[in-house]
């Protein structure tokens, strides 16, 4: 293998390892933002969705996504084959596996503290086996119909985060709010039990995101190196700007800089810049982050107070809304073809088509899966289990002793 290929492969592996670590970040954010009586359940969900996802994606999901685009269906789904083991593409399998697991694990947070463990495992399996690979195929396999249309989603604002976010929306809606979350039509606060653990999770996610975005270049040799470095800067600036604007907006509207919203602001910046991290300038990234940080705050309020959908960690807003937003903003800020750079509305239009069609798929497919699960094994734990906490009922254990 020549040196350049080795360099690229090594970069992909390192980036993939960083992305793997994001699982720890998601686990900490989710446990930190919820109550201690459900912590063990959340650990298990986040651990097992990665384990099941790793196996399922290797078993067949990877080829649903990246298998050849053949014949009539080729634009919509890859040609599957079992137990992928092409020794020359193991790095790619790894990198894509950790991405698939990210999409799956997002949902966990939105339905935390009330969902049956078995139900979650099955849903998570289907996410990595079917839901995620199919829309992923549309965008990231060169024969996918959105790819052919010229849709840009560099590292997955839409492919990964929005899919997770919209599935979260459907799931949180169908599972229903936690007991006590809405009384007399009013939304109540159910504070998380450990914001320090939550913020460690945010730092870990930020750390891993450098792999997520910069690894998505899938190369570092030759002139890719400067692109990769540029991605790291855009990623970092967007995250910083997202935190900044989320903090200031909460400072203005609640009179105090809000901690958990600021932490969500970091994620909003990261999710939003993911689509365009290689296509925008540092300044563009900064603006995308600023916008995302503001939008996420209002979106969280909107989902919570207007839609009355109970999303303990803000997954719908952080991943769905800012994922979509970030994808659209590529059409505005892309230095090549963006609205502000004289590219007109064409790119923006294509981006909108991509955002909408992927959302439709994620919402539709999740709905079908969850509807069937609801009618069969049920989505929700009993009232008693929910009140006492899932740990003691589903796992017969306390996390803290």
């Amino acid at each position, binding site marked *: 293998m020549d040196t350049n290929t080795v360099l690229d492969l090594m970069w992909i592996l390192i980036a993939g390892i960083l992305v793997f670590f994001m699982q720890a970040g998601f686990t900490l954010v989710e446990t930190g933002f919820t109550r201690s009586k459900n912590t063990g359940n959340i650990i298990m969900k986040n651990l097992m969705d990665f384990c099941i996802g790793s196996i399922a994606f290797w078993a067949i999901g990877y080829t649903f996504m990246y298998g050849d685009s053949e014949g009539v269906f080729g634009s919509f789904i890859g040609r599957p084959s079992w137990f992928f083991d092409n020794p020359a593409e193991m790095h790619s399998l790894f990198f894509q596996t950790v991405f698939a697991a990210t999409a799956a694990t997002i949902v966990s947070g939105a339905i935390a503290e009330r969902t049956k463990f078995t139900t979650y495992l099955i849903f998570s399996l289907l996410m990595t086996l079917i839901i995620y690979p199919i829309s992923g195929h549309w965008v990231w396999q060169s024969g996918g119909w959105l790819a052919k249309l010229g849709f840009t989603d560099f590292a997955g604002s839409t492919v990964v985060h929005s899919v997770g976010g919209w599935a979260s929306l459907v799931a949180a809606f169908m599972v229903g709010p936690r007991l006590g979350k809405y009384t007399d039509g009013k939304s109540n606060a159910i504070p998380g039990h450990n914001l320090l653990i939550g913020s460690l999770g945010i730092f870990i996610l930020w750390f891993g995101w450098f792999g997520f975005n910069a690894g998505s270049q899938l190369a570092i040799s030759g002139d890719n190196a400067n692109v990769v470095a540029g991605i790291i800067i855009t990623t970092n600036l967007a995250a910083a700007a997202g935190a900044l604007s989320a903090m200031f907006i909460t400072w203005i509207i609640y009179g105090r800089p809000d901690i958990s919203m600021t932490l969500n602001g970091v994620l909003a910046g990261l999710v939003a810049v993911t689509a365009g991290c290689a296509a925008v300038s540092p300044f563009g990234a900064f603006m995308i982050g600023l916008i995302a940080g503001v939008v996420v705050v209002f979106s969280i309020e909107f989902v919570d107070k207007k839609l009355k959908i109970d999303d303990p960690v803000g997954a719908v807003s952080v991943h769905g809304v800012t994922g979509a937003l970030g994808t659209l903003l590529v059409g505005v800020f892309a230095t090549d073809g963006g609205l502000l750079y004289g590219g007109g509305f064409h790119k923006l239009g294509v981006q909108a088509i991509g955002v909408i069609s992927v959302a439709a798929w994620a919402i539709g497919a999740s709905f079908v899966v969850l509807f069937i699960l609801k009618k069969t094994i049920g989505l929700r734990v009993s009232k008693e289990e929910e009140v*006492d906490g899932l740990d003691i009922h589903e796992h017969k*254990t306390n996390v803290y002793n």
Partner: protein
Amino acid sequence: MKKIEAIIRKSKFDEVKEALHQIEVNFFSYWDVTGVGNEKEGHVYRGVSYSTSDIQRRFLSIVVSDPFLERTVDAILKTAFTGTVGDGKVFVSNVEEVYRIRTKESGSDALK
């Protein structure tokens, strides 16, 4: 004045609190305790299954003036109830004097 100490299921706390507010008992203190009693809770830890009677409970301490005693106890008895072993207990004892730190009021005035 009487002190009512109630040891209840944590999961019943919100209902009890609501019921107390309804009868205008808006002052009390609570904390979490471990209760030992008839109820057993099954646990598994690293292969050892065991059942423990050490169960997390919430302890409420409410000092009321005498006329409030009955309705307060009733409210708790009613709302903390599930009917299965482990619902908890209510204890009533006498309090000789009460002071409100802020106003230095004492006696039942301090409980208004």
